[in-house]
């Protein structure tokens, strides 16, 4: 088997997969009697055609970067963390508790504290499945997915019975104090005199997400711990022989994974909603799996894949809100993208490899 040149592996294959996914989506849209060209135009202009669209696309992308990184770190240790959804839910609780605990004077103080709260709660939620995996061999796939449901039930109970302001019908916390309001990207652009994306939810967390990408890259490829995680993920027996403790690596990798998922709450809970509502994660934990898969567990790939899914989310929302295409079709398009870029990857890769092999030979 010839190896593909790196640029073809990282850029050409996903692009061809994407083109295939969109081609089949176009056929589906034609089949239900709509115009695929108009649909594509709505999606593109809605998601990236204006600073307004970008504001939403980047907001969604920020969520997906965090959950994608969370899944990727666990995947490097050979662990399939399906629990990013629940860990992000708990992270939201951590962020909310921090924001409500003190009358924060300024967001620059509140943000690090909230990040700590979100990361701690997310990590704690990952700790139990990690410990069960490491010590008892209970498979992390099963336990993390079950913990998603427990997290949903816990959040529901906490919001309805504990954190809800008396007399309020809405199962949500009170609004966070003004000192916790994160500057949006448009505020920041405004500060340097650029008019950009009014009233959109993208906020300073996007920069934190980029920093997290860098840190994860450093961790995985430039530190002894990252080396141990990768060695353990490639072959547990070899790692054990080299003196790497499986219990320690399993627990540490899951803690980092859970903390990254929990950090997402800084974006959606603190940055966007300004209070904790039910269902605030909205499936971003599961999208994270697709993002990590598509990004080949590499931070740069995850960043690009998160942007793509942010585009699909925002473009899909525009399509559902402002066209006659039923909202279920948006899910079909997103599913096709996941199917082609993830599961059917080899379908594109193998002919490409043959093509490049012939050229080389």
């Amino acid at each position: 088997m010839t190896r593909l040149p790196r640029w073809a592996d990282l850029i050409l294959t996903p692009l061809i997969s994407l083109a295939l996914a969109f081609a089949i989506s176009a056929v589906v849209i034609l089949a239900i009697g709509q115009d695929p060209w108009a649909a594509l135009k709505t999606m593109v202009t809605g998601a990236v055609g204006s600073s307004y669209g970008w504001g939403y696309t980047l907001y969604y992308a920020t969520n997906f970067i965090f959950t994608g990184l969370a899944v990727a770190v666990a995947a490097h240790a050979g662990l399939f963390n399906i629990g990013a959804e629940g860990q992000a839910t708990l992270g939201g609780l951590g962020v909310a508790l921090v924001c409500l605990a003190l009358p924060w004077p300024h967001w620059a103080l509140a943000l690090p504290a909230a990040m700590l709260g979100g990361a701690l709660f997310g990590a704690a939620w990952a700790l139990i499945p990690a410990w069960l995996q490491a010590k008892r061999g209970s498979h992390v796939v099963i336990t993390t997915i079950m913990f998603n449901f427990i997290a949903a039930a816990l959040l529901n109970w906490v919001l309805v019975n504990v954190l809800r302001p008396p007399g309020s019908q809405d199962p949500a916390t009170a609004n966070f104090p003004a000192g916790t309001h994160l500057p949006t990207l448009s505020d920041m652009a405004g500060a340097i005199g650029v008019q950009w994306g009014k009233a959109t939810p993208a906020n300073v967390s996007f920069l934190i997400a980029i920093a997290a990408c860098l840190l994860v890259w450093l961790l995985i490829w430039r530190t002894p711990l990252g080396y141990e995680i990768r060695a353990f993920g490639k072959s547990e027996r070899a790692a054990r022989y080299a003196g790497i403790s499986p219990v320690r690596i399993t627990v540490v990798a899951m803690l980092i994974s859970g903390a990254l998922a929990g950090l997402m709450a800084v974006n959606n809970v603190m940055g966007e909603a300004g209070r904790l509502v039910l269902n605030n994660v909205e499936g971003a934990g599961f999208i994270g799996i697709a993002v990590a898969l598509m990004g080949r567990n590499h931070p740069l790939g995850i960043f690009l894949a998160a942007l793509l899914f942010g585009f699909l989310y925002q473009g899909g929302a525009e399509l559902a809100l402002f066209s006659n295409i039923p909202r279920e079709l948006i899910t079909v398009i997103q599913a096709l993208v996941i199917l082609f870029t993830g599961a059917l990857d080899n379908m594109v890769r193998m002919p490409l490899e043959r093509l490049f092999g012939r050229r080389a030979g």
Partner: protein
Amino acid sequence: MTFLTRLAASAALLALSAGLAAADPALIYDLGGKFDKSFNEAAYAGAEKWKAETGGTYKELEMQSEAQREQALRRLAETGANPIVMTGFAFAEVLKKVAPDYPDTRFVIIDSAVEGANVQSNLFADEQGSYLAGVMAGMATKTKTVGFIGGMDVPLIRNFACGYVQGVKSVDPAIKVLQNMTGTTPAAWNDPVKGGELAKAQKAQGADVIYAAAGGTGIGVLQAAADEGILSIGVDSNQNHLHPGKVLTSAIKRVDTAVYDAFKAGTEVEVGKTNIWDVAHDGVGVAMDDNNKPLVSDEMAKAVEDARAKIASGELKVVNYNTGNACPVQ
């Protein structure tokens, strides 16, 4: 010449369509979806009634995610829709933020109260309608056990349950009320299979009348009750026709009227006020029609009418769960 006429014609057309668009009302459905046979669908029915009567057109949107609420409101306001009607208390916080930015647009929110010079709020006395349903359930039960199945465990649904229990106990304090919630995620609003299973479980514990306040999940409850040969009570919309002779009644909530009224008033819809839809204003009540006629005895009809009159006159107070975050009876 031709170019000029075409230009003039298109300009006129543009002006005309802009004028039309500006007058169009808009309706936003909450996450449950438009066809939930219940809350959102009642809003849809009101809008369709207005459309059939006036021949007008309206814009409609279905929410897909929490972050979209603000997006949807702003986009609709910017396209010139007026008034903008939204269903569900979850819009309250967002509306507080958005409404002041569009002073010329009028907003109507259902199921919540939001202060604002350009906002009309609509609150429904859900506990009163549920109380009347409870009275009927209490009189219809032979096993002295009735059931309640809620959607998600949120205060709104606890209020339904609380009113229902108060009604049942007013007939006979010894009647047992079984209570179940379907789930803890929004999927609980649309899980008819689980609703059916809960109904069967309650029947196994002796319940012979089951009240479903669970959106789309209720369809499964009503179906299972009909299959098991026991009675059920529908919610929000009149659901008596779903299984004629098997649905005791429906605790209706005139969301359709609220939407219809708002659409009819159009850009002149009254703002800065809160409408209270209780039994006195026919905002809530129980559905009586040909489908449930054989099930409702004269005695039962009279008891309901008495309770209704007493609540309307203020002689009988049905406790609202949200005033004290607790229900006086279980």
